[in-house]
């Protein structure tokens, strides 16, 4: 039995008594038969996380070998079953997202043609209705895109294409697109870029995706007529990007959580703003894969500054690195 899970190995080697079970994603607890805690140990080994064993496991010296083996078998079967289910879920997300995107292209295509007047003159009222349909279609499209990205993040199949990138050009292009959205709230997006910012070897489309996401959030939570500033400067071996807004801000205790999947600071209010809490998790995965870091500093009611870094010397093997990023583990975020 060379392939037995790490939990079983430890139990066998150390002949621990009692029930060992996973308390949370970070610790294991060992109990005696009366459920008194004998020991708590950190689940630091990679195997713990991969196996994600939630089953309790009994291993007392007086137990027969048969019993021991039968428990071991159950655990192994459960692990295989869990992995199988996980794969089905990821495939399901991937396939459905692809299938959702084709109809979205058709819907958006016809709306855009109508808005351009390609299919005949439209009235102001019709134009207004079509604008709303298009805006909502775009929202759905972003959601589908995020779900697809999450499934790629989880399965480690996101493709990265690193290329030499002029940071100033990249930001100017991105800000130009985002300014048209900001205009609707009379918000001005400024760029403050230090002259000696070096070119970076990055997946430009993916980094743009992060910036678009952060700017979208900044616009969403900013007050009408305010200013958003993008600061960029070299600091040590990294280039630091800062996106500063003067919006409603994020309470201190929630600042780390916002990078978690499906997390929304204020459910009631965020419903109104749209979004399901996928964007920041995706952004975080992309930045970590590039060898950078992402975090937020914010004062409730005064605004937020999202910061991320990208290394001047690019990481080797972006895709390999990316597979190591665990989007559910947040300890490595500052």
């Amino acid at each position, binding site marked *: 039995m060379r392939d037995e899970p790490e939990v079983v190995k430890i139990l066998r080697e150390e002949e621990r008594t009692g029930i060992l079970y996973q308390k949370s994603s970070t610790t294991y607890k060992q109990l005696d038969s009366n459920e008194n805690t004998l020991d708590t140990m950190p689940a630091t080994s990679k195997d713990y996380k991969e196996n994600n064993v939630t089953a309790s496991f009994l291993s007392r010296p007086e137990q027969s070998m048969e019993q021991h083996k039968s428990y071991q078998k159950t655990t192994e079967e459960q692990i295989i079953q869990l992995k199988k289910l996980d794969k089905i879920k990821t495939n399901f997300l991937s396939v459905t997202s*692809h299938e959702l*995107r*084709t109809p979205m*292209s*058709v819907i*958006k295509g016809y709306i855009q043609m109508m808005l351009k007047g390609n299919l005949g003159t439209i009235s102001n009222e019709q134009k207004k209705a079509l604008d709303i349909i298009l805006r909502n279609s775009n929202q759905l499209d972003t959601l589908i895109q995020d779900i697809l990205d999450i499934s790629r993040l989880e399965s480690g199949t996101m493709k990265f294409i690193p290329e030499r990138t002029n940071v100033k050009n990249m930001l100017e292009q991105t800000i130009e697109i985002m300014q048209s959205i900001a205009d609707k709230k009379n918000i001005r997006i400024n760029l403050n870029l230090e002259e000696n910012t070096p070119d970076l070897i990055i997946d430009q489309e993916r980094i743009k995706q992060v910036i678009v996401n952060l700017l979208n959030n900044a616009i969403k939570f900013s007050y009408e007529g305010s200013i958003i500033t993008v600061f960029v400067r070299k600091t040590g071996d990294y280039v630091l990007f800062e996106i500063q807004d003067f919006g409603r801000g994020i309470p201190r205790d929630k600042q780390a959580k916002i990078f978690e999947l499906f997390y929304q600071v204020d459910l009631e209010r965020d419903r109104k703003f749209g979004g399901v809490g996928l964007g920041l998790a995706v952004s975080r995965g992309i930045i970590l894969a590039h060898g950078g870091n992402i975090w937020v500093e914010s004062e409730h009611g005064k605004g937020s500054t999202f910061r991320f870094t990208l290394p001047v010397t690019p990481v080797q093997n972006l895709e390999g690195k990316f597979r190591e990023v665990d989007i559910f583990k947040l300890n490595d975020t500052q």
Partner: protein
Amino acid sequence: MRKIMIVEDETDLREMLSLMIRKEGFKTLTAEDGDDFLNKIDDFQPDLVTLDVMMPGLTTREILDKLKEKKTKPKIILLTVVRYSDEEKQKLYKMGVVDYVTKPFELDDLTNRIHKYLSKDKN
């Protein structure tokens, strides 16, 4: 009038693209897969082709290979859900591909590219 062929297996998307490109002032013909495209190309003689990369039947590579045997040498824009590395792009460029757009694409993005590649011809 410039001629464009639309190769796409999804009926609604194919019709939408065809209509959109006709509205831009081009003559269009549609094909629903690689075989259909290769059968029609020499009769229609398009200047440009929009080619979907995920269709049942022939793969994109097979289509581009078989295209070499045809008289007509159109410019090809790929409609794709995947992105290409520089190396892959160079390979594709050698096979007649001039550009690619990633789905879901914006209409203007595709039509701007079509205009760009067809107006270059005039010079």
